[in-house]
């Protein structure tokens, strides 16, 4: 189906199912139970899963396939957001104007930045991209204030023209009248509260398309050439292939994915700030890709989900919650246990994430996907037998 072989088609269907069922799957605990705070099925977080999933899928086309590690992809995220908010200000709140512009603008910037940065490889390439991203950040933060509204961030004011704005049009981002922040269904089934949000499904459908495109690229001759770039550039040029245009194409494609993700961020929440372009945001997508499994199809999405989950759920566990959990222990012991766990949760969630990241890099160089494969092998003898002859296509 759709130019994919049987195995990939099945895989795509599983991804589509999981994506569409996310509002249910991420809500495993009933409302009001002690574990309810581990539920992640609320719109704001699910939108982030989908959006950062797209960001990481695109980043993986560059880093996973060609091995070029960019430390400046957040610049394209910011460019995408600014494009969308500008379309709100000039035209109206329909995201149909802004999103294509976000992709085009980030593509143009990626072409320029990539053309210069790809003159070098390895650490020098990374530093060049980092320099470009920090320059973009500085421009957005101060120099280009008329365009970006500086540190306040770009937003829509009542004085803005919005020339296409109809009288009955919703006053927040929408897609032909489907308002992003609205929920179309909020069933309460036996204590479980599910939220089906317009914005999430909008992002989810785009994420599925983005995933499908990346799958096609992975399986195409072009994808094979990108892996050849990573493997041996010397052999590549002596085989009659020019590595540079291939790498530049991968850079532009991944920049466009980042622009799309940035555009979607502004589609969910009509704001664009310079902090979105900062180097920490560029570093985050590197972490997501490596944590999930660079060069695999699903890995970056898993990594993105994992990090966003930690950022939003672990960071909410404070001392009160901990005392609630360990109240069954004797007083002195309870305080001790809480004191031990305290640095790893709440504001210390970065610490836990850092430890997990180290564990993954040391014990699972293939990321969370490798963990999945190892577990899969434990349950299936056949897989273990195939191991020696396993084909070397990047695993899912």
């Amino acid at each position, binding site marked *: 189906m759709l130019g994919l*072989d049987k195995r990939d088609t099945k895989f795509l269907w599983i991804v589509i199912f999981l994506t569409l069922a996310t509002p249910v799957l991420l809500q495993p605990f009933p409302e009001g139970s002690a574990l309810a705070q581990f539920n992640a099925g609320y719109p704001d977080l699910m939108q982030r899963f989908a959006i950062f999933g797209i960001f990481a899928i695109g980043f993986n086309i560059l880093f996973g396939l060609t091995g070029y590690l960019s430390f400046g992809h957040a610049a394209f995220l910011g460019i995408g957001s600014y494009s969308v908010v500008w379309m709100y200000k000039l035209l109206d709140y329909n995201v149909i104007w802004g999103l294509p512009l976000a992709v085009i603008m980030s593509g143009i910037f990626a072409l320029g930045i990539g053309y210069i940065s790809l003159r070098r490889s390895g650490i020098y390439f990374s530093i060049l991209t980092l320099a470009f991203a920090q320059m973009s950040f500085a421009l957005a933060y101060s120099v280009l204030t008329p365009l970006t509204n500086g540190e306040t961030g770009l937003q829509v004011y009542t004085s803005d023209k919005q020339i296409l704005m109809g009288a009955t049009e919703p006053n927040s981002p929408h897609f032909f009248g489907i308002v992003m922040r609205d929920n179309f269904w909020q069933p309460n089934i036996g204590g479980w509260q599910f939220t089906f949000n317009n914005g999430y499904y909008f992002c989810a459908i785009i994420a599925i398309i983005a995933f499908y495109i990346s799958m096609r690229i992975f399986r195409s001759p072009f994808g094979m050439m990108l892996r050849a770039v990573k493997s041996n550039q010397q052999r590549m040029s*002596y085989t009659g292939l020019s590595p540079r245009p291939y790498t530049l194409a991968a850079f532009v494609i991944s920049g466009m994915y980042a622009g799309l993700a940035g555009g979607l961020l502004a589609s969910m929440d009509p704001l664009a700030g310079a902090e979105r372009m900062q180097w920490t945001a560029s570093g985050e997508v590197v972490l997501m890709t490596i944590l999930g499994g660079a060069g695999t199809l699903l890995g970056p999405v898993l990594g993105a989900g994992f990090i966003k989950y930690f950022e939003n759920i672990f960071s909410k566990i404070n001392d009160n919650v901990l005392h609630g959990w360990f109240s069954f222990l004797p007083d002195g012991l309870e305080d001790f246990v809480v004191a031990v766990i305290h640095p790893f949760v709440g504001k210390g969630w970065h610490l836990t994430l850092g430890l997990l990241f180290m564990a993954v890099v040391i014990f699972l160089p293939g990321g969370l996907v490798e963990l999945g494969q190892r577990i899969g092998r434990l349950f299936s003898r056949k897989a273990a037998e195939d191991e020696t002859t396993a084909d070397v296509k990047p695993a899912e």
Partner: protein
Amino acid sequence: MGILEVKGVNKRFGGLQALGNVNLSIQENTVHAIIGPNGAGKSTLLNVLVGKLIPDTGSVMFDGQSVLGRKPHEINQMGISRVFQTPEIFGDLNVMENVLIPCFAKRDGSFRMHAFESVPNEKDLIEKAEQMLIDVKMIDKRKMHAASMSRGDKRRLEMAMCLVQEPRLLLLDEPTAGMARADTNNTIDLLKEIKAKRDITMAIIEHDMHVVFSLAERITVLAQGTPLVEDSPENIKGHPKVQEAYLGQAHG
């Protein structure tokens, strides 16, 4: 007029004259060996031929066109393939993919954005690559991770990658360097088979005299950056100048 004409090539690295007035003519469909002691300029000459080094003076013409100033991938597209001293293959890819990539390069040129085509749909190229793997007796290893193979197999694979492009000139840089005797003999047999099957011109740079005398039809002896003599293998064997270059000047 040979397929490859090197005329008056000089190359200097600082104070070292690496190549001094090299003239060389390689005839079509011959196996031409370039031999010489260490530091004779064999590798420098090869790097000039593939566009990696630009000579200070002189010309290098392949089939009537100059190769000077062209990039390695452009020279390959003209029909020159190269086998390296240590096999250069795509280690992260499997054997089949390693052979498919040169097929794509031959058909589509140095860059093509085929992002929405599917590799399994390229039936013609896959068939061609499979035939090549059968020819070099590697078809049973088609799914193997290329980096995990033995050195002899890597060499075999690299030759398959070059040959599948049907180059008009194949340059081999010490193809048996560091190989065990058995592997060396296998490589000689492989090259002989290839030569018997198709029209191909080969230029071999080699240390191992056993390899040279098993394969070469013409031999050029290089010493201190200058060709000493060019002749048939029989005449080279007993040539006093060659013995002098290899064994040193006799005293007294």
